[in-house]
């Protein structure tokens, strides 16, 4: 299996080349089937790699001699292969969901959309598997480039182009910062591999401005991808306009890649004695996570544009992931891993349902759709279940992950409960209004700075009369996946093993450079549902339902106090760039904070 690890990245690339080259001659069903098959093959490889391992593969057989080398290493440990498997499985469901989805495939390029999705998959899998900083940057850029194109896919309108532009600007800026950081790190260590650079830093043992700057700059790009406040502005704009299948991938895995990258780079490179002290990292991630979670939750509650609502809930949950990873204790990290898995299923399912609404009613505005979707009972039930999963209702995987993270979080437990309740509550409120017609019809108050969701165009060729059962099936499958994360003990055990390896600075270097393999996942005690965890999950689900009930009646005042926060999300690219620059300052201040 070791040698075949690169194929997880390579098969989608070859598929994309095939689709782009033969796309002129290819009828649409053949192109879409080819896309599905390539994605599925890669998913199969990733799952097989996950079952064995850890795999350490040197591209081109350029192995290091005495810990130094010229080659690139792919490290298929549990976390990397797990993330690649999650990505690939989600890509397969997304391609199934997007089956004959768009009305106007580019003329003569029937394969363009599946080809772009395959390239996206390759970028994300490569990023998850690589153990080399520069190679990670290359795959980071590949993800980005494809992401911009997919976001702006519906060029018939002006706003998708605007959203893609904001996405492109902010992410490119983050990419430059990361590249600069990698160059600074190379100046100190003479290495690009994560394990090698980490060992060199430890040998040099100098914790100075150079190390600090390279850490801050590398992290900046990754946090832009992760949409941490104040780097998050691109995300809601991109999600609101991207085609629904693309949103499923952006929210489900791409944003989480940023979180993964930040933690992976810290652990492998900077966590040793020559790097950045653990308390500095902890402080930075806790504060950023707190800010991100609260901002996301507050703005999520405000939205009536259903895709923007889900986008801000992604921001809120990313904040929780960051806060959960801050301490880098294996138990907390296990929780975050499970949380990410559960969240991917739930969030993708919610987007899938929203896409069904958009294509049937030609809009995603909570107020305009009031009571109109009464006939779509099945989708309504799925939507509400997705909302409860976000809120953390046991036994969804989100709830298990949240419970495990909370056990390590101390006073941050309150944050987990409140943020998941608010985001879940917002989704439930929307579900009650749209699918049940609950509460009074809201009148439009003109003049407020507001993004309504009624300018969205349906994405399918004609408004769907009878919902293709495929769309609903995909949503149901995704929710079932999220449920399975909370019900299958083997997943929790594997996540615990992955987390132990993931948080081990010296162990990673030894696995990569010395070839010593710890027994995978064996012998680690793993946590499962506890009474407190179930209780807190039920509490946040109950809170979410209560909030939704109050929200439907308009009893939760929201507009006024959040107006300044909403105005910051102006859609002006210049604003976003300014905040990104300010974010670098904030991050440095947090890492440098005296008394740490």
């Amino acid at each position: 299996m070791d040698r075949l690890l690169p194929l997880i990245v390579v098969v989608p690339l070859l598929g994309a080349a095939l689709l782009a080259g033969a796309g002129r001659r290819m009828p649409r069903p053949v192109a879409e089937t080819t896309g599905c098959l390539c994605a599925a093959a890669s998913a199969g490889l990733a799952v097989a790699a996950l079952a064995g391992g850890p795999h350490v593969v040197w591209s081109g057989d350029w192995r290091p001699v005495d810990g130094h080398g010229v080659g690139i290493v792919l490290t298929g440990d549990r976390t990397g292969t797990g993330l690649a498997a999650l990505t690939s499985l989600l890509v397969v469901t997304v391609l199934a969901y997007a089956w004959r989805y768009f009305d106007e495939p580019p003329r003569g390029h029937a394969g363009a959309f599946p080809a772009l999705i395959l390239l996206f998959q390759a970028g994300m899998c490569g990023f998850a598997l690589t153990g080399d900083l520069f190679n990670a940057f290359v795959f980071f850029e590949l993800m980005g480039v494809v992401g911009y194109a997919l976001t702006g896919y519906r060029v018939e309108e002006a706003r998708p182009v605007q959203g893609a532009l904001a996405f492109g600007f902010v992410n490119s800026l983050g990419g430059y910062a990361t590249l600069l950081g990698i160059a600074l790190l190379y100046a100190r260590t003479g290495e690009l591999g994560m394990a090698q650079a980490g060992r060199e830093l430890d040998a040099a043992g100098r914790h100075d401005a150079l190390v600090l700057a390279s850490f801050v700059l590398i992290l900046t790009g990754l946090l832009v991808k992760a949409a941490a406040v104040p780097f998050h502005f691109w995300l809601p704009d991109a999600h609101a306009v991207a085609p629904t299948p693309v949103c499923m991938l952006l929210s489900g895995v791409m944003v989480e890649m940023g979180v993964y990258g930040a933690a992976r780079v810290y652990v492998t490179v900077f966590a040793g004695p020559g790097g950045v002290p653990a308390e500095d990292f902890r402080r930075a991630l806790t504060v950023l996570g707190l800010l991100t979670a609260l901002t996301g939750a507050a703005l999520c509650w405000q939205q009536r544009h259903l895709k923007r609502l889900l986008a801000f809930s992604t921001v809120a949950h990313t904040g929780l992931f960051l806060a959960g990873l801050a301490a880098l204790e294996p138990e907390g990290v296990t929780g975050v891993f499970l949380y990410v898995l559960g969240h991917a299923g739930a969030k993708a399912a919610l987007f899938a349902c929203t896409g069904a609404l958009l294509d049937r009613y030609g809009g995603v505005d909570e107020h305009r759709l009031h009571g109109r979707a009464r006939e779509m009972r099945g989708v309504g039930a799925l939507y509400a279940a997705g909302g409860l999963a976000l809120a953390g209702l046991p036994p969804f995987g989100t709830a298990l992950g949240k419970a495990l993270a909370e056990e390590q979080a101390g006073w941050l437990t309150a944050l987990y409960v409140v943020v998941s309740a608010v985001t879940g509550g917002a989704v439930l409120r929307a579900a009650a209004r749209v699918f049940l017609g609950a509460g009074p019809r809201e009148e439009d108050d003109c003049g407020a700075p507001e993004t309504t969701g009624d300018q969205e165009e349906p994405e399918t060729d004609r408004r769907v009369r009878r919902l293709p059962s495929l769309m609903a099936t995909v949503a149901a499958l995704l929710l079932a996946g999220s449920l399975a994360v909370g019900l299958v003990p083997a997943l929790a055990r594997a996540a615990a093993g992955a987390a132990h390896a993931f948080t081990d600075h010296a162990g990673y270097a030894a696995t990569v450079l010395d070839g010593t393999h710890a027994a995978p996942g064996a012998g680690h005690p793993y946590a499962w549902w506890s009474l407190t965890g179930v209780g807190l999950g039920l509490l946040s689900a109950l809170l979410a339902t209560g909030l939704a009930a109050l929200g439907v009646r308009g009893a939760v005042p929201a507009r006024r106090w959040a107006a300044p926060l909403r105005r910051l999300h102006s859609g002006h690219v210049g604003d976003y760039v300014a905040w990104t620059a300010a974010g670098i300052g904030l991050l440095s201040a947090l890492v440098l904070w005296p008394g740490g």
Partner: protein
Amino acid sequence: MSRRFRLCVLALGLLAFAALFTAACAELPPFGGDRHPYGDRAVHAALLRHTANTVSAVNFDQRALDTLGEESILFASVLGTVVLLRQTSDEHRTVPKPSPVPDRTRRYGLLALPVTLLIGLYVVAHGQLSPGGGFQGGVVVATAVHLLYIAVDYRALERVRPLGPYEIADAAGEAAYVLTGAGGLLAGAAYLANVLPYGTFNTLSSGGTVPLLNAAVGVEVAAAVVVLLARFLGQALEIEGDEDRGEGKG
């Protein structure tokens, strides 16, 4: 956000960045030193594989996986451009009118075209020996084709540039790189392993798989730049909206 507030936020961020970066630069190794850890290892490794141009040895052998990623980025950009600059249902194509070209420009263009093309091909072919390679040479080749647009007119360019074959060449270059890499797996080694005979140092056939990967990139880059420019030129010269779509944005 008001302009003033935006500039304040930006200034704060840039000041913090400047302070951080200056402090970091003070700790950099001194300029002109003789410690080049990666460079030394890379030159040594390049000579082992009989590749005279170390940069190509890094790009197409030692760190060939990076180049696969970079090539894919270009490939994805072309595909993205094809999608984003497509002709939508509310747009139509017009035939751009030819405009007169001064005789001197025409003579210069027609003279420079074959020379440029030859230089481009040379740069691609000698990537493993001298500075240059698939990326650089590919761009030069694509530039040569576009001299026709400057020297004659858009229709002449269109005649030598049927987009279909170029799009196929673009994909074929990408596929060739991926498959050459898989050759390593078939030979029982790692992905992208250099499994061909290394040849005689400083000859065209030296370097094992380096010339092959280099050529794949050359084909991909030349085709990609042609398609990319064609899409932008098409959008600028041919495609027109049925009505002005520049409505105010939210």
